[in-house]
């Protein structure tokens, strides 16, 4: 583990030297990263095609656009994000400066995943750079070409010491996890997530875990089922189902199950043609192991759509299975592949119970036209995120915090949330040594009177900013202004009348 130790030491020294701290440096690195994405788009697409058969359009669509947007946002807002954030004071601290100062943590370890090797590694890196940290980047070895390409490209654009890339497999990751980092950002499966957290426990390193789970997709019988199926089909079969927030399975009532199957079949024809194997837009499974795993999930069930496969290409056709029993293997683990089981439920209440009996998922999808029912379903369940009447889109809004809960993960990121996640929010109180007389009441020897004075001074908040008080304040102000204007008008009229009298008198004089 000599190499990993060396790289960490270099990154630490570079961080301690302070050069990652100034905003100009961070902006410069972010611009360089932006250039890398723009200039090397073709190379990245090729690498992804070799890794996972990603179509040349899916690459910018699914990865590059979001990375670009994150970089643009960080560049635009960095000064704002890094500025001190003032907070409310108490009487005791009325003449002091009270604020929260975001500060870098140090050296962050970013462990990427193989399904979106660029986005899931670089978006955390954007936040790490923006927050002023150094970062050791460990892309997944399963997306081999992307991993090697990143290892070659990053040092050409970014500071070599601050942001080293470590390639390798399980043993290299284990070596890294033995070392001490200031934060570990891990994207991957729950099993490995537990090991990461356990390793982090040794050094008391905080972690962000972006894991997965079975994201349920409920389709209500009284909604626009055709449009629902189009959107679900897109989300499910993009990247060949290998997306952590892909709709894992469908829950619907038996009366619309047939329709759902037909609409999905229709949509698949529209998207990928009669033989998806020939479509340039349909992907492949990442490797033999996952191919075998997914094929074995299907054992014993006859699909109603698809089901074909080709082991030599790691190709599995877009497949739909209906009437899947809840206790089947297909419903036990996250599918992470192009198999879409449909489980029937008797109504929305049944669907809610079904979801709540299982682990908290990374995403929940609800297709429904009834606002009240939607509200109810959101309120009675929990999940990392929710998209209603579509799939995966909550991922695309960078102002929404993206992350899991329970077994689907801990921590959030995207946009400012990555910056905050990889910063330390340091509470700062800047006092002066003047006004010592005010302080005297808190020192011993103590008596009742002094104690009361201190209690008063520590009371916070200074100004009651609750809604009720605000409403009273506004109403009182309006009334006050109203009265004042009325008074003015009365005075003016009185004065005006007077003036008119004088005017007439004068005129006739």
């Amino acid at each position, binding site marked *: 583990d000599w190499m990993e130790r060396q790289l960490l030491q270099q990154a630490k020294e570079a961080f301690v030297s302070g050069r990652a701290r100034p905003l100009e440096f961070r902006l410069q690195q972010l611009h360089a990263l932006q250039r890398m994405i723009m200039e090397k788009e073709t190379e990245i697409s090729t690498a992804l095609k070799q890794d996972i058969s990603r179509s040349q359009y899916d690459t910018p669509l699914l990865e590059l656009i979001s990375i670009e*947007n994150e970089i643009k946002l960080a560049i635009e807002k960095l000064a704002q994000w890094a500025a001190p954030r003032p907070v409310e004071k108490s009487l005791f601290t009325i003449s002091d400066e009270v604020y929260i100062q975001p500060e870098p943590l140090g050296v962050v370890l970013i462990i990427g995943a193989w399904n979106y090797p660029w986005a899931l590694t670089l978006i955390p890196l954007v936040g790490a750079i923006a927050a002023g940290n150094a970062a050791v980047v460990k892309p997944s070895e399963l997306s081999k070409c992307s991993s090697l390409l990143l290892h070659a490209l990053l040092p050409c654009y970014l500071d070599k010491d601050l942001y080293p890339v470590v390639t390798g497999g399980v043993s290299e990751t284990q070596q890294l996890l033995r070392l001490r980092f200031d934060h570990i950002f891990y994207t991957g499966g729950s099993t490995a997530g537990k090991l990461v*957290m356990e390793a982090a426990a*040794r050094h008391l390193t905080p972690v962000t875990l972006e894991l997965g789970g079975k994201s349920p997709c409920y389709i209500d019988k009284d909604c626009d089922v055709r449009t629902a199926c189009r959107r679900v089909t897109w989300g499910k079969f993009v990247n060949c189902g290998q997306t952590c927030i892909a709709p894992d399975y469908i829950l619907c009532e038996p009366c619309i199950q047939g329709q759902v199957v037909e609409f999905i079949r229709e949509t698949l024809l529209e998207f990928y043609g009669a033989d998806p194997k020939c479509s340039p837009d349909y992907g492949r499974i990442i490797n033999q192991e996952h191919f075998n795993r997914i094929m074995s999930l299907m054992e014993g069930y006859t699909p109603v759509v698809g089901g074909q496969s080709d082991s030599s290409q790691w190709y599995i056709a877009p497949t739909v299975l209906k009437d899947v029993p809840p206790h089947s293997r297909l419903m036990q683990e996250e599918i992470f592949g192009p198999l879409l089981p449909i489980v029937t439920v008797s109504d929305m209440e049944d669907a809610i119970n079904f979801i709540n009996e299982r682990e908290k998922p990374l995403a929940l999808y609800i297709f429904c036209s009834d606002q009240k029912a939607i509200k109810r379903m959101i309120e009675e369940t929990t999940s990392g995120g929710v998209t209603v009447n579509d799939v995966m889109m*909550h991922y695309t809004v960078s*102002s929404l915090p993206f992350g899991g809960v*329970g077994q689907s993960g801990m921590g959030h990121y995207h946009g400012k949330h990555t910056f905050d996640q990889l910063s330390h929010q340091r509470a700062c109180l*800047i006092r002066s*040594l003047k006004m010592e007389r005010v302080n005297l009441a808190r020192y011993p020897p103590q008596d009742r009177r002094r104690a009361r004075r201190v209690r008063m001074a520590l009371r916070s908040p200074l100004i009651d900013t609750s809604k009720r008080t605000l409403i009273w304040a506004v109403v009182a102000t309006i009334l006050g202004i109203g009265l004042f204007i009325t008074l003015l008008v009365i005075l003016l009229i009185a004065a005006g009348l007077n003036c008119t009298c004088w005017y007439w008198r004068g005129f006739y004089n």
Partner: protein
Amino acid sequence: MDSHSQVLERLRTGFRSGITLPLEFRRTQLTKLLALVKDNEEQIVKALHQDLAKPKFESILSEVEIVTNDLHHAISNVATWIQPEYVPKNLATKLDDCFVRREPLGVVLIIGPWNYPLQLLILPLVGAIAAGNCAVIKPSEVSSATDCLVAELIPKYLSQDCYAVVRGGAEETKALLQNRFDHIFYTGSQAVARSVVQAASVHLTPVTLELGGKCPCLIYGRINIQAAAHRLVWAKYFNAGQSCVAPDYVLCTKATRDALVPALTNVLEEFYGKEPQKSPDLSRIVSARHFTRLMKLLEKTKGKVVIGGQSDEDDKYIAPTVLVDVEEDDVLMGEEIFGPILPILTVEELEKSIELVNRKEKPLALYVFSDESSVVKMTMENTSSGGFCSNDGIVHMTLPGLPFGGVGASGWGSYHGRWGFETFSHRRACMLRGWALERLNGLRYPPYSDDKLKWLRWTTSAHSTCSLM
């Protein structure tokens, strides 16, 4: 006494029933907690006096008052906190509802320490209740009188279906940690924190760790030595130095030290009289074990005692003590002192002091005393710590607007005020789309084309709102 699993079953059923979700329930429970503290102030003060010989003033200020303040703050603000937070969108999602919901996590575990046995147990509980969770509360057995009192009072005031107190020592806590919780809030030492995180990792339970560390106190530049001495003594010997944010050691120049020591002597006499053991305003060490630990430090140190040094084992009393000529490798500079012993290290340059501080683990708090703002600025910008306070000690944690927590070895996460509410909540990203604009959606569907891609780039860009105008 219910077993752990029985308690957890009861709380899980309570949570699943949804009873903790409505605003009214949360406010009622918080109000009841407020009543618990107000009605039983006498008994609380008595129990704290029994445990730590805590003076009434300290008990009121640092246990009762701070809890009541936070409760008032939570009760007034919880309605605002639970509102969905609407967020800015891009062009593709302009017609959608995008907001963040704060949701409870489930059943949380709060483990309290012995130094501020009420505050450090109840303040996290305030956040947990406000966020709509159920909670298992585990007070420290070291502060036994308070442990007893809490176990007796909580079931009397709070709903027994949602909140339970579990008592016991290290063994019981280890057994408790084997169970699955939705969040673990631990205040205490680093050694135990490691096993807490390890136990949590088995269930992927998020944790908040409020640990300690050696909080440095730098005194440099022009300084009003009397005022500084007052505040330093107050912060250091409050609760007999047994505060996680107490200034642990002082770094200053020889000249400052020579002015500081007589000032400290004067202030100590002012505060505690000529015989501090007789003063009603000074606490005692919590247990014989900790007393022995501190006495060993005093025995092994190579520093010179210039103030205090007396002790009384039966009374668990150690006089407010100050030592000089302490070096960086002294035994007093090893672990967190957590007692009324103040070593002064002499370092002539501020830069060298900062380097010394940076050689050690990141502390929970960092203090600077100086009339020169450049000294304060330089220290703040070149160090890292949980919190930072210039020209005073401890008080930064009394402001509910400031997050209270550590960084690195001093902790993970934060709380107080709204921060406590956020710690015990899950921020769920929600996007509600409509059925219209399916044609716009068509841009993302296969079969793909260059044109579609171009449009897509434009509509999803964060700037596209401006381009439309």
